[in-house]
């Protein structure tokens, strides 16, 4: 029998990882929902966000300025990428956009390698304290990550629910043609959503940076997991992605009580396969009528 304190520690770990994964995945699912674009460059936006964060952090010394600056920079970069590469491909075969985003991801990854070199950069967390959680010292910063991620996702939810642009985004997601006939500038809504997704990826990159060190390949692992989450949560379903992030991260955290964390990842893929077999529309969406 696993002792209770270990279970609780793993539950907290799972929620913390789940929240940051939710931040990555919600950008991804938002983009997929509105443009039917599977954005393979999402992990690279995450990684570049972290790098931009380190650069701003080194210059200003403030973690918060770095976080905000990285979000704004990546939003602008995301918008530029969307306008130059994805907008002309809208409505084409999905394979075309997949290849385009895959190409973007290679370019960004190698740009980062060229610009920043292979040695991981460090970004220092804004709070360094620990608190006693049973037998281990648990860093406050991990809880702060979970809290900030929750705040950002909550902000996004309010924006989507009540904001004019949120309504534009939801209307465009449901019926692109009708939205444009209502005077909604659909091409710019797409650009905006891509920018929001990029900014959220950047935020997660900066938040996650202090835990792993920033390197040019850090995006890969996260995108892979975010894709699993997006499929399990139901493609394009924001709430589903958030639930799936937390659900899968908790499963992995508990699984790592028995096996190594690297092996625990298998659990997510098992869930992914089961979802695709038995509920291909997603685990957290109501059964289609």
């Amino acid at each position, binding site marked *: 029998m696993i002792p209770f304190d270990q279970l609780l520690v793993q539950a907290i770990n799972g929620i913390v990882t789940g929240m940051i994964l939710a931040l990555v995945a919600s950008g991804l699912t938002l983009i997929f929902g509105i443009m039917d674009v599977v954005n393979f460059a999402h992990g690279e936006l995450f990684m570049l966000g972290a790098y931009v964060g380190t650069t701003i952090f080194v210059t200003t010394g403030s973690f918060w300025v770095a976080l905000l600056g990285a979000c704004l920079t990546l939003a602008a970069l995301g918008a530029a990428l969307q306008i130059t590469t994805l907008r002309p491909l809208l409505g084409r075969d999905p394979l075309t956009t997949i290849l385009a985003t895959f190409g973007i991801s290679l370019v960004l990854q190698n740009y980062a390698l060229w610009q920043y070199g292979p040695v991981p950069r460090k970004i220092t967390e804004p709070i360094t304290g620990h608190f006693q959680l049973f037998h281990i010292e648990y860093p406050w910063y991990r809880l702060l990550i979970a809290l900030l991620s929750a705040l950002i996702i909550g902000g996004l939810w309010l924006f989507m629910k009540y904001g004019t642009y949120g*309504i534009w985004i*939801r*209307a465009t997601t449901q019926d692109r043609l*009708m939205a*444009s*006939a*209502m*005077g909604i*500038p*659909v091409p710019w809504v797409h650009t905006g959503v891509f920018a929001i997704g990029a900014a959220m990826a950047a935020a997660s990159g900066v938040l996650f940076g202090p835990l792993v060190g920033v390197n040019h390949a850090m995006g890969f692992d996260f995108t892979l997991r975010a894709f699993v989450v997006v499929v399990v949560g139901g493609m394009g379903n924001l709430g589903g992605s958030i639930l799936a992030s937390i659900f899968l991260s908790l499963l992995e955290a508990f699984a790592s009580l028995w096996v190594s964390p690297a092996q625990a990842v298998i659990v997510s893929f098992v869930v992914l396969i089961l979802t695709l077999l038995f509920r291909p529309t997603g685990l957290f969406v109501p059964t289609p009528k």
Partner: protein
Amino acid sequence: MLDLQDVHTYYGKSHVLHGVSLEVSAGEVVGLLGRNGVGKSTTLKTVMGLVRPAAGHVRFEGRDLTGLAPHHVARRGIAWVPEDRRIFRLLTVMENLRTGLDRQGMTEPRKQELLEKVYASFPVLRERRHQAGGTLSGGEQQMLAIARAMTLTPKIILLDEPTEGLMPRMVAQIREIIDVLRRDGVAILLVEQNVPLTLEVCARVYIMEKGQVRYRGSARELQANETIIHQYLGVSA
């Protein structure tokens, strides 16, 4: 005000509109009749910029709309009420209306005023304002589609088969709203299968067949011409 000249439209390789010409003056209610599949809906979609004509011109208030994106067409003052209504099903009634209300140049009092006007025409939408569009009945969805178009304060509404599949009581209500719009000076291009209703509300009528306008005349003339009605529409008015 709206002027189509020799418009040809294709869907892929199939030639749907073979040179459609028609015009609607400011404040005029004009009917577009014809059997299924003759290109009536495509004509409206071409005006909206949802499909691009291969040849010909669409002009609105003297300016060329051809090739303009649908949201620019909408902002010029043209609203579209599609045949299948295309309500944003997951958005509430209020949010559906906000897709038209929340646009540049709209002040909060102006929005309220417009919303009140729409609710006055369709009281049931006020009751259902927090309900998802997809949960409304067919008739209510049709009202929402028209109400949504009204939030754009358009100069012309392209109304595609608004009475299709509706109960007589709802048809009467749609008829009433067409009158209200006419009194407000909104022009309407009405695509219908319901010939008696069209002849009642429209001043002028076009009849399409095989992607072309085959008959044009006043509603009164057409009413008196059983042969034409029978030939092109296969019904008796």
